């Protein structure tokens, strides 16, 4: 767990330290002088009538831990398989280290993949699995032994070297798969739902371990996952995909705080979405009419909207305050009735129904014991938030 | 009331046994009867006839030696019959039930006496010879007009066989037919049971072995008829069957059969009743039915083998009756030889020799 703190700091350093020293921050995507390791240029992939990837462009930089996030069928696995060489783009090109990789077969690419099923060779021992790729390279025997030992050490599998895959646990298999795919020291490592088969506790530990290993080896990781928590935890940047299109590419915090569209806002974390029409009141500030006979909501926004344009306010539940009296000086305050309370231990989420039927969630930290909770079911309460709390999105 | 019940039971019992008794099971060689005779037998006698066929004496013999075959009438060749009699496989015939036995041909019965003295266990069904079937045109093409088609030299002289190999020669895969023929060809006793004499047959086959396309006991019928081969050592009736097929097909192949002048083996297929036959009465009825002059003639007219039935001759097709290859003349008949069954020790020598001749091992 020591590693966890370390990596969290690495991951979030982008934001934490941004104001301090921009040149020390790991954010090559912000540096126009950096050349990306991987470039997708207008890539489209069709299977018959079905378009899996739709005119997609994306840059991934060296040493990044890049996550492709989306529901199943969004095209993220197809992207990964194109990188590995198991699929070829129908249109567009994929550049790896300045070279178009379309004509390069999978076995000639400096890319390795960790399969969702791990795809360990059942007839080979753990060490032979790890040595498999090295032997294909024609590496001298001694070097292979050293490299395998190194990989076993890295993944803490020394004790299991001579076992067969069916003789070890799921978590151990996962580490063997990782060790095997890292053994060849690829420029790029692809991880297809690497933690999908593990139970939750083990998954969390392994997430940090993955980050640890990524850091130690300095390899560029591209991970495919449908689990947003996993993506947010491990990745330096996350690409949210839907129906073969890129919805947003950003660091986890930006993705959460500044979703660019309703899809991303809704997909990442918990959110209240309130639809309405915008009216510009000043530079970057708007009033949104969302319900008749109720005052408009105030919101600031970087997104430029014209008056009368349809829009959606996205507000995270933890940014909504709950009180029994109407709060003074709040930018936005609405009244409603508590319909449901979700007790999460450290937090409670209140599901509040407004007069027009709109449900809004508010989250508070449980700083007091439950018996002394201020609100209960069917209480009439006020919900309030500041003009900067929400994000104003088009549509 | 009591009376009726008793009657009913008796009637029931009668039908039960009657149903069993009505079945007659016959085991004969394949393609060896005019099948119209089978339905005719059922109509005349009221028995249900179950007619099965076999194609080798060995198969029949194994059933006879094991016992419990379930057949009422079987038709082994005389040499095999003799051995089977000695192990008690057959029951003596009841001549009171075979009035048609008077139709039998004494000349044939005299010859079968060596296998079954006084026809105690069997009567002759048909008889024939083992000779040479050939394609007239193809043999002439290979060997010229003077081809020795009436001599064993045709198939045992390597000079002739070398020329015939091109058009194809089959031998019977039956050592008890082929080895006596070879011994006869080199002037030895064809019926010798002396292993040293029998061994002499090897050299006869060794000379011609490379020219023999196949050893088989039935395929030669079709092969001759189609013109795939030009010569086959085979059984008279089989060759006639090939001749008939070729005529029917009108394929330009002209087949004939010859009994070599050196002599040929004469064999007899005998009807007999297994010792454990379920229905001896039915068996006698079937034999008696076949011994009927007209029925016997019908069978011969169909399969072209000579009948052991003298009275039948008046009904036999003159074409067959006057064909010396089927009914040999006195001179040829005198030249025919018969063989006796080998005992186990000699049989082993013969089988082993035959394997060596065929496979070289």
């Amino acid at each position, binding site marked *: 767990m020591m590693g966890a703190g370390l990596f969290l700091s690495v991951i979030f350093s982008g934001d934490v330290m941004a104001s301090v020293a921009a040149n020390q921050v790991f954010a090559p995507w912000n540096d126009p002088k950096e050349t990306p390791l991987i470039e997708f240029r207008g890539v489209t992939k069709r299977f018959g009538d079905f378009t899996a990837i739709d005119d997609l462009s994306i840059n991934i930089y060296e040493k990044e831990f890049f996550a492709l996030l989306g529901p199943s069928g969004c095209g993220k696995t197809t992207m990964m398989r194109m990188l590995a*060489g198991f699929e070829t783009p129908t249109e567009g090109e994929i550049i790896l280290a300045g070279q178009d990789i379309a004509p390069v077969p999978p076995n000639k690419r400096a890319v390795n*993949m960790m399969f969702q099923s791990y795809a360990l*060779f059942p007839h080979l021992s753990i060490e032979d699995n790890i040595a498999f790729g090295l032997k294909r390279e024609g590496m001298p025997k001694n070097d292979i032994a050293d490299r395998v030992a190194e990989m076993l050490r890295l993944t803490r599998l020394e004790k299991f070297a001579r076992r067969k895959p069916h003789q070890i646990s799921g978590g151990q298999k996962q580490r063997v798969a990782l060790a095997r795919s890292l053994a060849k020291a690829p420029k790029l490592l692809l991880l297809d739902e690497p933690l999908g088969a593990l139970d939750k506790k083990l998954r969390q530990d392994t997430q940090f371990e993955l980050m640890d290993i990524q850091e130690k080896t300095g390899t560029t990781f591209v991970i495919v996952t449908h689990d947003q928590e996993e993506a947010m935890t491990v990745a330096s940047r996350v690409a949210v995909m839907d129906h073969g299109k890129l919805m947003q590419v950003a660091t986890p915090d930006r993705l959460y705080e500044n979703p660019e569209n309703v899809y991303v806002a809704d997909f990442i974390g918990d959110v209240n979405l309130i639809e309405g029409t915008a009216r510009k009141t000043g530079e970057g500030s708007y009033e949104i009419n969302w319900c008749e006979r109720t005052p408009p909501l105030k919101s600031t926004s970087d997104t430029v909207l014209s008056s009368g344009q349809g829009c959606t306010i996205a507000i995270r539940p933890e940014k909504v305050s709950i009180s029994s009296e109407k709060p003074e000086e709040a930018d936005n305050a609405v009244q409603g009735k508590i319909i449901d309370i979700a007790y999460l231990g450290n937090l409670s989420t209140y599901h509040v129904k407004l007069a027009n039927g709109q449900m809004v969630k508010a989250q508070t930290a449980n700083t007091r014991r439950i018996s002394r909770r201020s609100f209960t079911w069917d209480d009439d309460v006020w919900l309030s938030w500041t003009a900067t709390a929400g994000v104003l999105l088009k549509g | 009331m009591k009376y009726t019940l008793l009657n009913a039971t008796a009637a029931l019992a009668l039908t039960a046994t009657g149903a069993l008794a009505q079945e007659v099971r016959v085991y004969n060689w394949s393609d060896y009867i005019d099948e119209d005779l089978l339905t005719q037998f059922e109509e005349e006698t009221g028995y249900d006839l179950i007619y099965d066929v076999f194609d080798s004496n060995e198969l029949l013999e194994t059933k006879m*030696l094991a016992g419990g075959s379930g057949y009422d009438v079987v038709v082994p060749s005389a040499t095999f019959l003799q051995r089977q009699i000695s192990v008690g496989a057959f029951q003596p015939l009841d001549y009171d039930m075979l009035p048609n036995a008077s139709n039998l041909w004494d000349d044939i019965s005299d010859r079968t006496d060596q296998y079954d003295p006084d026809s105690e266990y069997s009567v002759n069904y048909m008889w024939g010879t083992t000779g040479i079937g050939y394609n007239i045109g193809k043999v002439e093409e290979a060997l010229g007009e003077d081809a020795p088609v009436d001599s064993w030299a045709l198939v045992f002289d390597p000079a002739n066989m070398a020329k015939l190999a091109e058009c194809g020669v089959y031998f019977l895969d039956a050592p008890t037919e082929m080895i006596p023929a070879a011994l006869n060809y080199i002037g030895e006793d064809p019926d010798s049971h002396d292993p040293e004499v029998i061994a002499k047959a090897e050299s006869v086959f060794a000379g011609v072995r490379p020219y023999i396309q196949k050893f088989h006991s039935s395929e030669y019928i079709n092969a001759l008829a189609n013109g795939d081969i030009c010569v086959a050592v085979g059984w008279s009736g089989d060759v006639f069957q090939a001749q008939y097929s070729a005529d029917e097909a009108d394929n330009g192949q002209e087949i004939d059969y010859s009994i070599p002048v050196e002599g040929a083996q004469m064999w007899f297929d005998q009807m007999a009743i297994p010792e454990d036959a379920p229905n001896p009465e039915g068996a006698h009825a079937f034999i008696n039915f076949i011994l009927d002059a007209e029925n016997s003639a019908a069978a011969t007219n169909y399969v072209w083998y000579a009948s052991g039935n003298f009275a039948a001759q008046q009904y036999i097709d003159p074409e067959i009756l006057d064909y010396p290859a089927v009914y040999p003349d006195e001179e040829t008949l005198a030249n025919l030889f018969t063989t006796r069954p080998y005992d186990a020790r000699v049989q082993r020598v013969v089988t082993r020799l035959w*394997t060596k001749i065929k496979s070289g091992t």
Partner: protein
Amino acid sequence: MKRLLIAVPYFWLLALFLVPFLIVFKISLSDVALARPPYFPQWQFEEGWSALTDYLRALDFENFWFLSTDDLYWKAYLSSLRIAVVATFFTLLVGFPIAYGMARAPLEWRPTLMMLVILPFWTSFLIRVYAWIGILSGEGYLNQFLMWLGVIQDPLIILNTNVAVYIGIVYTYLPFMILPIYSALEKLDESLLEAAEDLGCSRFTAFWLVTFPLSKQGIIAGCFLVFIPTIGEFVIPSLLGGSSTLMIGKVLWEEFFNNRDWPVASAVAVVLLLILIIPIILFQRNEQKNREAEG
């Protein structure tokens, strides 16, 4: 109840293997005789114990000794082994690609393909072997076809040669080879091959290093299922083989039918079984290993 269930396969083994084998073995110890049945001595239950000891004393291993005195027998065993090995190899050569194709076929086709493999069993084995005579003979379909193509001028002589025997065996036993290999290949996770390619294998080396070793159990099972019955095969060599095709099945037939020597025939059968027991045990081991690996 559970014991009863365990007893069933043992009863099966006893009734269908051990008892018949003991009968054959007993006959192999007796002497040929002109009698019904044609061997000696016999013992009837009602003759009692003293007769039994006389009976047992009369049994001996003479027939096995006899088998060693004539080179025919060991030559026939060797020749059968050779034919079985060669035929098994060719069956594998033909069967593996078929099994591979089936396992790689779209899922919805597989039941149909499986059906097609099993379909020939619906016709009598004898008829199917006979059909090959029509195909392979001098004027058969194969020669007609090749001559029509102009590949050959004169008909090939295939029928009545060992080549025809191999063709017959490969054809007849092909399903026994395909099915176990197919079931091994079907279980093979496609991602293993992708992983192998990803780690630097060409398609061919991936096949050789992954597909082949993982289908090994199926290959071994298939080979035994073909090899074991082929050694004793009688019908195929007698219908398609030539006079010089030497196989122990034919020798057995001749001992039994031509020589009427049931004791020697039984001895041949017992020795054949002893020869087969080695591959049968190996096969069982392989199966067990298979189950353990899966378990």
